[in-house]
């Protein structure tokens, strides 16, 4: 059952490779992803025991990431059918196959309990994204792909070195030599402190660059800006969560060792720095897709701050992980539609989207309000819980800075989004084929609906899952 999560998308990828027709090939995506969603739901309802050897296990953290990714991927694959219908001239064989291989790799990240296996799966997600970012085959997208490949490959190589240090700390401490997560957590306090310390730093830098924490985020604006909206949604909502899960595994070991407090402090600072970077670069951004990349930097910052605060903030941080990925899905998909309708992503030309593409314009606007933390949407709840936890712990500086950055980011983002959606439509615009249609509007609409519902009501199973996951990180159960 577990292996089906990994193997089914791979089979799908092989199938897309065999289908000769551009139009029919896209239909493989929703079929496979709906099956994947069904398996995910079954596994979350009743997770099987660990595989022999303990390499594969679906715990609460894995379930959260898996569920988020599966929902996001299903929506994106429905969208892909409509999107690719507009782009039939461009061969989409590589795109479809890479998307499915990526789904397989992200599922493997969620279920692996061996850090070596986790690393391999994470590196695989990095590689499968490269052809996706390069889908448009122009000079700008190749530049983005190159930067992305190089920075992420080096980052993930540094993480591998960190894993080696972790393994070596077990040798020096004369323990069982392993990279199995449960054993490492049990023995965390007894690991050799020097090597363990070095391992944490290298792993933080490595996974941090994949997540796009400032100042390791430099690839993000380019990759998010040049990739198709659909791919941007998966990068910002899916891959970020995979890298975050890797970091959470390190976090589990850190809190079990004597170094938990120090590790949390480092995370707190990195999170706040990311938010500050985002606040500065968000202002006066003339490319609305690049702006979304800085929003992504901001939100990994917010989650990292929550991890740094620990205790009650962990629940909120994990909730924010889900909220962020769903809302980012709406943002990228609707902004992809606007991009197509105007054939530009510069705020100089793209104005008054609400008239040209009423549905996408409205969705973009709603998702902007959601992601900046306006009620009644879900990110408001999680951000509010994080702030109140900061003040509740007496960490007033963090709380105040957090609120300040949120306000600055709201203003910065509004100054780009409002003209794009509500401004005067410029005259003599280039004519384009794209107008809002059902296949490209209803997928983000579904996501927006989920974001709205989660804002007013968190279903009981999700609440239990979040509490279990927070307990794994050492928070209050």
């Amino acid at each position, binding site marked *: 059952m577990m292996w089906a999560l990994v193997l089914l998308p791979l089979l799908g990828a092989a199938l897309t490779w065999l289908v000769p027709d551009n139009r029919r090939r896209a239909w493989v995506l929703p079929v496979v992803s709906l099956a994947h969603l069904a398996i995910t739901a079954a596994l979350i309802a009743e997770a099987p025991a660990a595989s022999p050897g303990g390499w594969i296990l679906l715990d609460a953290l894995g379930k959260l990431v898996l569920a988020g990714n599966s929902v996001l991927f299903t929506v994106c694959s429905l969208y892909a059918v409509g999107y690719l219908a507009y782009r039939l001239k461009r061969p989409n064989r590589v795109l479809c196959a890479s998307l499915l291989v990526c789904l397989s790799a992200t599922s493997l990240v969620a279920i692996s309990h061996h850090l*070596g*296996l986790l690393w391999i799966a994470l*590196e695989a997600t990095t590689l499968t994204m490269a052809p996706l970012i390069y889908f448009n085959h122009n*000079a700008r997208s190749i530049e983005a792909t190159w930067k992305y490949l190089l920075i992420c490959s080096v980052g993930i190589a540094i993480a591998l070195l960190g894993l080696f240090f972790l393994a070596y700390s077990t040798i020096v401490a004369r323990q069982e030599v392993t990279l199995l997560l449960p054993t490492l957590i049990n023995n965390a306090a007894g690991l050799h402190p020097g090597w363990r310390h070095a391992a944490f730093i290298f792993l933080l830098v490595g996974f941090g660059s994949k997540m796009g924490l400032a100042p390791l985020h430099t690839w993000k604006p380019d990759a998010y800006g040049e990739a198709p909206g659909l791919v941007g949604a998966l990068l910002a909502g899916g891959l970020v969560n995979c890298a975050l899960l890797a970091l959470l595994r390190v976090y589990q070991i850190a809190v079990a060792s004597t170094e938990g407090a120090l590790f949390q402090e480092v995370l707190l600072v990195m999170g706040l720095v990311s938010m500050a970077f985002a606040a500065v670069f968000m202002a006066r951004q003339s490319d609305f897709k690049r702006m979304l990349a800085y929003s992504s930097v901001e939100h990994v910052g917010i989650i990292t701050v929550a991890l740094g605060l620990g205790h009650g903030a962990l629940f909120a941080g994990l909730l924010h992980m889900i909220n962020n990925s769903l809302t980012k899905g709406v943002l990228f998909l609707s902004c992809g539609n606007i991009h197509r309708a105007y054939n530009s992503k510069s705020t100089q030309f793209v104005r008054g989207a609400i008239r040209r593409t009423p549905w996408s314009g409205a969705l973009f606007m709603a998702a902007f309000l959601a992601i900046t933390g306006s009620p009644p949407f879900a990110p408001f709840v999680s951000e509010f819980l994080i702030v109140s936890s900061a003040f509740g712990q007496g960490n007033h500086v963090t709380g105040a800075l957090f609120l300040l950055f949120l306000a600055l980011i709201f203003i910065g983002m509004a100054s780009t989004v409002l003209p794009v959606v509500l401004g005067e439509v410029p005259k003599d615009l280039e004519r384009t084929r794209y107008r809002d249609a059902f296949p490209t509007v209803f997928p983000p609409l579904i996501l927006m609906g989920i974001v709205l519902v989660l804002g007013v009501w968190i279903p009981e199973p999700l609440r239990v899952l979040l509490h279990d996951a927070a307990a794994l990180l050492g928070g209050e159960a």
Partner: protein
Amino acid sequence: MNSLADQLLVLCLLINFAVLGTSRLAFSVRSVAVQGVLLGVLPALVHPFSWHLAFIVVSIILVKGGLIPVLIIRAIKKAEIEREFSPFIGYIPSLVLGALFTSLAFIFAAKLPLAPEHEGLLVVPAAAATLMSGFLVLMGRRKAISQVLGYLLMENGIFLFGLLLADAMPVMVEAGALLDLLVGIFVMGIVINHISREFSSIDTSRLSALREE
């Protein structure tokens, strides 16, 4: 650890300097390939025989000494490029910095709290020096292919450190890491090919359209 292994490690260190000091790309690729083969042979000398070990040795030699160099040489031929021109960090400064990093690596390794059976070995300083040389090549060169070579040197450094923990790394993990590396180089080769078509050059300093104003 026997003296043959030590000699091979010294050879690895010398190869770093060969890569740091040359502008000829094909020569650099071959040097890194030789280093990859050495990396494959080393575990055979350090650890007692097992089928697991044999598999690792063969696959490292095949991938690092065979497939990856072939992929890169193909990219070089397609891009019709032979040399690195005007790097950001010149060859002489690169060599001096390389020497500096190598000596620092030895001082640093002597202070590390290694397990008693690993003390006094060349593995750790060689790994650190190779890693730093990789960084130097990665940051100091303009051509996309040189940057890939820098990345490979870095990976070689990390693999060298991995020599100390052959027991901790199950076959699956090692094979997976190698496969990822291979696919990574394959993808990079394709991207380089497209860069050279799009820009009629693989000079990465021309990739500047996306700079933040």
